[in-house]
């Protein structure tokens, strides 16, 4: 390690340019385990993204039968059997916290698994590059074409590529808007040109961003725009599995012939034949042999590229592999490699994930299908009636989260000789309790008057509890407040 020294004056000769022109990267196609995994994940994730809105789920007569739906107009979020109301938006907060913790855990165990395999930027860039290679050929063919192919031929290929990219980008934006309305209906409307303007606007925006980010910006999104590489660098440690060039085995590198000759003479020679296939295959243009670095998204394609070469030259594979810095160091010292997945860091992440997940599952399981909130009238706090009794007024809001209408009986406890009536509006009485009907998936606000003849202490403030009871099914919810007296 170099000792930190105070830098001296900056030499303008070695002071590089302030701004760097784009270094265009055309990664070569590779074949192997990680490429297969990536194709598989690409098909699965994009399949879910494009098709999920069409999955049906019966929600009764008043809501669209869609399994996953963000209903902005009515403030509802539907996810299979879960229905989230605006006041339960903390579930989304919980999900975001869980997502962050899972990201930390993935990173502590096996590096940037998210970046390399699941991040939308990676998935769509991969798809766009595949289209590029399909239309214009591998980087080597591209270079040949630049020299030999006719201008018309090249223009046609470029146009086809951009057309295909735009089609994918357009379909990506189109799938997005389907999550916000009944998908089959909206698809028909869009086809007929009768969709809402906001849908076309969002399709336009997402077509543009997908086309620009996945087609043109590519790795620059990962290196310059995304904050995760910076955060990830601070979270990783020597036990984390990362795509690693095993320099203990690869160095000193040299051509195949040279290293073979050195090996025959018993001189130090590494397995790396400096063929640069790992660099050519890298979608972010990284040379993994320089060690772990910011731009590396750890997709494993250099592993596939290297393994292919190693098989050809008859040397053992896994010169580049998922490995830990700790094990590279241990092998250099002649020690056996160790695996340590359970460390303070990973156990803590797991515990936090279990805790947050547990809380969320509990609240999800314990949530009721009805609720009531109560607001006491502040002006006036109480009134005296002509017969001398004292009355307080409250605003109740009853929530019915089921997709059928329900009738609720309203009662109050804690006020002696309380008489409860619904002000304005028509309500029926069941067992001396007023009953109101609340429509499916709706809230109902009503004004309730509670009065009592009982002698109250001076400046009385009695705890009062309001209860709503489903007349048919018997489920009940309560809300506390106070009854004020003179």
């Amino acid at each position, binding site marked *: 390690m*170099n000792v*930190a*020294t*105070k*830098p*001296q*004056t*900056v*030499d303008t000769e*070695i*002071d*590089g*340019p*302030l*701004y*760097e*022109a*784009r270094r265009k990267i055309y990664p070569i196609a590779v074949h192997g385990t990680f490429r297969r995994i990536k194709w598989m994940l690409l098909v699965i994730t994009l399949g879910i993204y494009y098709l999920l809105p069409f999955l049906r789920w019966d929600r009764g007569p008043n809501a669209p039968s869609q399994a996953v739906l963000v209903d902005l107009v009515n403030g509802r979020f539907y996810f299979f059997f879960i229905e989230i109301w605006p006041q339960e938006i903390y579930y989304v907060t919980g999900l975001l916290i869980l997502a962050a913790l899972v990201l930390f855990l993935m990173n502590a165990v096996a590096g940037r698994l998210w970046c390399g395999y699941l991040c939308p930027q990676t998935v769509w860039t991969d798809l766009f590059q595949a289209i590029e290679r399909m239309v214009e050929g591998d980087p080597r063919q591209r270079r040949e074409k630049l020299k030999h192919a006719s201008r018309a031929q090249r223009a046609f290929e470029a146009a086809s590529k951009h057309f295909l990219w735009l089609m994918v980008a357009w379909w990506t934006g189109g799938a997005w808007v389907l999550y916000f309305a009944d998908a089959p209906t909206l698809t028909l409307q869009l086809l007929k040109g009768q969709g809402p303007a906001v849908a076309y606007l969002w399709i336009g925006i997402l077509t543009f961003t997908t086309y620009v980010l996945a087609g043109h910006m590519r790795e*620059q999104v990962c290196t*310059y725009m995304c904050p995760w590489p910076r955060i990830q660098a601070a979270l990783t440690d020597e036990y984390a599995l990362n795509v690693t060039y095993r320099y203990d085995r690869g160095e000193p590198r040299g051509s195949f012939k040279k290293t073979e000759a050195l090996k025959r003479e018993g001189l130090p020679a590494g397995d790396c034949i400096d063929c640069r296939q790992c660099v050519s295959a890298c979608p972010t243009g990284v040379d993994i042999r320089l060690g772990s670095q910011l731009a590396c998204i750890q997709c494993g394609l250099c592993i596939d590229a290297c393994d292919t070469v190693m098989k050809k030259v008859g040397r053992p594979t896994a010169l580049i592999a998922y490995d830990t810095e700790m094990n590279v160091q241990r092998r250099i010292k002649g020690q056996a490699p160790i695996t340590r997945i359970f460390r303070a860091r990973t156990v803590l992440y797991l515990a936090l994930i279990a805790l947050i997940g547990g809380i969320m599952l509990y609240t999800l399981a314990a949530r009721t299908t009805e609720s009531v909130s109560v607001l006491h*009238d*502040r*002006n*006036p706090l109480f*009134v*005296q*009636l*002509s*017969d*001398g009794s004292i*009355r307080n*007024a409250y605003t109740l809001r009853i929530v019915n989260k089921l997709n059928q209408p329900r009738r609720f009986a309203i009662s109050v406890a804690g006020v002696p000789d309380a008489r409860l*009536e619904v*002000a*304005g*509006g*028509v309500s029926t009485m069941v067992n001396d309790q007023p009953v109101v*009907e609340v*429509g499916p998936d709706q809230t*109902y*606000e009503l*004004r309730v*008057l509670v009065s009592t003849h009982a002698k109250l202490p001076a400046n009385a403030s009695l705890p009062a509890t309001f209860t709503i009871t489903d007349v048919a099914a018997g489920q009940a919810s309560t809300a506390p407040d106070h009854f004020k007296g003179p």
Partner: protein
Amino acid sequence: MADIHKPDVDAISGVATTGHEWDGIRELNTPLPRWWLWVFYLTIVWAVGYWIVYPAWPLVSSYTSGVLGWKSRDAVQVQLADLTAQRAVFADKLAAASLEQIESTPELLSFARAQGRAAFANNCAPCHGAGGGGAKGYPNLNDDDWMWGGSLEQIQQTLLHGIRSADPDAHVGDMPAFGRDGILQRPEIVAVADYVRSLSNLPVPAGVTPDLAKGKEVFEANCAACHGADAKGNIELGAPNLTDGIWLYGSGRDSVIATLTNGRGGIMPAWGTRLDPTTIKALTVYVHALGGGQ
């Protein structure tokens, strides 16, 4: 790789440093991408265009109005028109429905109450208080005492035509100034005041010996015509119930004597000429629900 003669080059990466150092960590002088620079230039161009297109620069007494002539006031007008159009669906239903229909339709009722609450705050709250709690001379709308009747139709009638207003259909009913006009003498007024207070079982101040018999006699001769022989009041004349313990002008002995001496005649404007019928409807429903109506 590293050039040992140039100490401002990072020994490991071979990249020049900026010369900045924090706790032994030095910053590599990595160039920014050029597209980033172009995006920056583009934002400058955008800003210049914005100055020209939209109102931007303050002048001495005005501002540059921009070539589009866009005004935030116009934008608000568009939004307001949009809001009116959105509300039109319910507003039309409200205009068509009867008061009873409004109260029996939950969604119409909540719309009417919301509109009524806003209209009440704008027009009624200065006298009746923000929550309709009233004040001396201004009735509390939350209780069950209605001088001019608390049914939906009665409340609407009061709202439309007012009380002792210039409207020909306004409620009228005057409490005579018994003392000022010389109808009753002071001892008679004191006696009837004590009698009336006794109807509500109000406490008698120390040192006072009420002459209830005389009070009853004076009451039957002068007051029973409007307030009724049982003093329960008469909503046709707006004569309040004197037995219910609710006193518009205060229940103190002096207050009651002042009322008898000078008479009372609070005025409520006729709102039918100021507010549209739908707003009156919404206010009626809102006020009706405040105290539970009659």
